[in-house]
């Protein structure tokens, strides 16, 4: 009986470990930026992504310290979570709140500050 119990338990644990996977793992800002942002904002973060050719509005250049310093972290968070229209900007910037959790969006905001080498109100 004891043998059966322990073997069933081990089998179940293996099954659980093998099938289940974290649904809301928190990823790094840099990794998230590559997957979700490069397509429009570019590999260099300069707004020259692979999708830009036929766009009616140029995506933000995240390396532009002057422009990025004029946006607070809260505004950047809101733009990512709710989309460009939430901060009176383009509909081409989609809302990512369904795809990314708040921690991931905060990581992205922190990564944007790395890209621009700037802080809100500073240079």
């Amino acid at each position, binding site marked *: 009986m004891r043998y059966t119990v322990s073997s069933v338990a081990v089998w179940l644990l293996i099954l659980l470990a093998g099938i289940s996977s974290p649904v809301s793992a928190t990823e790094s800002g840099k990794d998230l930026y590559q997957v979700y942002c490069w397509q429009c904002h*570019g590999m260099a973060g300069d707004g020259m992504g692979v999708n830009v050719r036929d766009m009616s509005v140029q995506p933000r250049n995240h390396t532009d310290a002057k422009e990025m310093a004029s946006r607070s972290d809260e505004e950047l968070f809101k733009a990512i979570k709710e989309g460009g229209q939430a901060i009176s900007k383009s509909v081409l910037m989609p809302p990512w709140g369904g795809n990314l959790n708040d921690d991931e969006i905060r990581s992205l905001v922190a990564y944007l500050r790395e890209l621009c080498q700037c802080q809100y109100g500073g240079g």
Partner: protein
Amino acid sequence: MMAGIIKSGMRTRYSGRFIWVCLLLCLPLLAVAQEQAPVSQLLKDRCSSCHNLTGPAPTTLAALRARKAPDLFYAGNKYKQEWLVEWLQAPKRIRPAGMLYVDHIKASVDGDVVDKASLQPHMSLDADTAKSVAADIMTLKGGAALVTAGDYQPGKISASMGEMLFDKFRGCLACHEIEPGYGGASGPEMYTVAKRLQEDYLISFLRNPLAWDPRTFMPDKKLKEKDLQKFVHYFRGLSEMKF
């Protein structure tokens, strides 16, 4: 002696409870397993090295980046069989920048461009094999709970109204081409989508892309129900145009 018997009885009772707890914990997993169709040997031989035939879809960026080709474990609820038969005989790229654009772009003086040399062609099959593979693919019915037969109500929208909705109001053109060479490169082309995919799947995917693909780089735009229908009307119109 008596203490030993009591102890052993307790161990058995607690062990029994442990099994029940484990079984209860596993019930949702068993439900997922039941939803998955058995995979034919033909698909295992031909498709499994690049396509996920059993699920689940990637839930981490690492898994997303490792995905080489579209997941097929819900293909029977997604594709149109007649299109699969044709496409497998003469495969043509659907995503201009490959499965995950991140791995197929390079910097240029004009900004990032598709690195065409990095894209691998899909194998083509003879007519009989294509027919058999397509039939087997259609047996993969994952995600059935997400699709409702008859969700799409056939109707029409003018091409200009459809484009207005797709581009100006919702910004989808940023990532998707609506004719060859016009639109974004990171997402799949939209001018063939109604030929490729079942309308009820399109409604379901547009309603909640993350339910199908939790780490997709397609944003969940929380589209209105009536707009879901309009989008599919528009796609059907696009698929009838000659480009």
